[in-house]
């Protein structure tokens, strides 16, 4: 049962960030979110972060990753998340095997 100091610090940093976002709703004036542009910006954050996170893997690793990501995206429009993950993982493994 090891507990690395750097890992503990990182976990505490993540916890602090999450405590902040969770409690900020308590003091957030409703008026701040009423502005359409502020609201649009806020709502776009998760998708934008996730897209920025995967883009290098999807677009700049190799064709197997790009094709696997496309298949995964199509699956994501219809299937539950766990099936989407299964399809993505299998597609990536098969396409990488084809690519050698």
């Amino acid at each position, binding site marked *: 049962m090891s507990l690395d100091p750097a890992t503990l610090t990182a976990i505490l940093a993540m916890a602090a960030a999450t405590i902040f976002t969770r409690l900020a709703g308590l003091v957030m004036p409703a008026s701040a979110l009423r502005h359409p542009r502020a609201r649009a910006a806020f709502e776009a*954050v998760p998708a934008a972060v996730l897209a920025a996170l995967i883009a290098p893997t999807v677009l700049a690793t190799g064709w197997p990753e790009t094709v696997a990501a496309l298949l995964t995206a199509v699956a994501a429009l219809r299937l539950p998340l766990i099936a989407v993950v299964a399809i993505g993982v299998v597609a990536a493994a098969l396409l990488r095997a084809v690519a050698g």
Partner: protein
Amino acid sequence: MTVSPEPSPWHEARAGALAILPAAVAVVPFALLLGALAAEKGLSPLEVALMSGLVFAGGSQFVALDLWTTPAAWLTLGSAALLVNLRHILMGASITPKMEGFHPLGRVLALLLLADEIWAMAERRAAVARLTPAFYAGLAGLLYVNWVAFTTAGVVVGARLGDPAAYGFDFAFTAIFIGLIAGFRHTRGFLPTIVAAGLAAVATQAVLPGPVSIAVGAAAGVAVAALLPARREAAA
């Protein structure tokens, strides 16, 4: 105000636990996967239990493990968690007024446990009945114990699996994030947002490899979303 008899807290807590049960079952494979990916990054069961218990936000935990380095870079990981979890502010602002029967401390505790599924179920409850602390405790208690237990179990299971890349297992991160992104597809300006974020991230990564590309990409996507003409505002 209400004249209907107050249901017993026990009954309410059980109703809350039953309401979250399908989500709790559905989240088990992800919890195991998270634990397995964490094991691959060298985290111990204790470290994963701590992370799940203190952070309790699956999306940001997957993101953190994707970015994980040894030794862990707390500033990068903390900033990533902040960005991924900014949506909590909106969720909290929306659910807080519906917690009028909560003790102030209970409200703080409830918000600290505000995960996506709990929020969704609490909103649904508040739409049809009074949201009671006991109902919320049923929701949050079951999902919390479930998440901490199965992510920790995943470390033990995952440590026996071997090299994840051999099965395309590393692509699970990308696949989960694609699935989560697809969940936002009905948000206004969705496509321009993710295209801008993705392209800006790839361009940044080419010049300056590392987590900076996430911040730049995210900023580009958010800027595009904010600057888009709000065409269907009246319908929203």
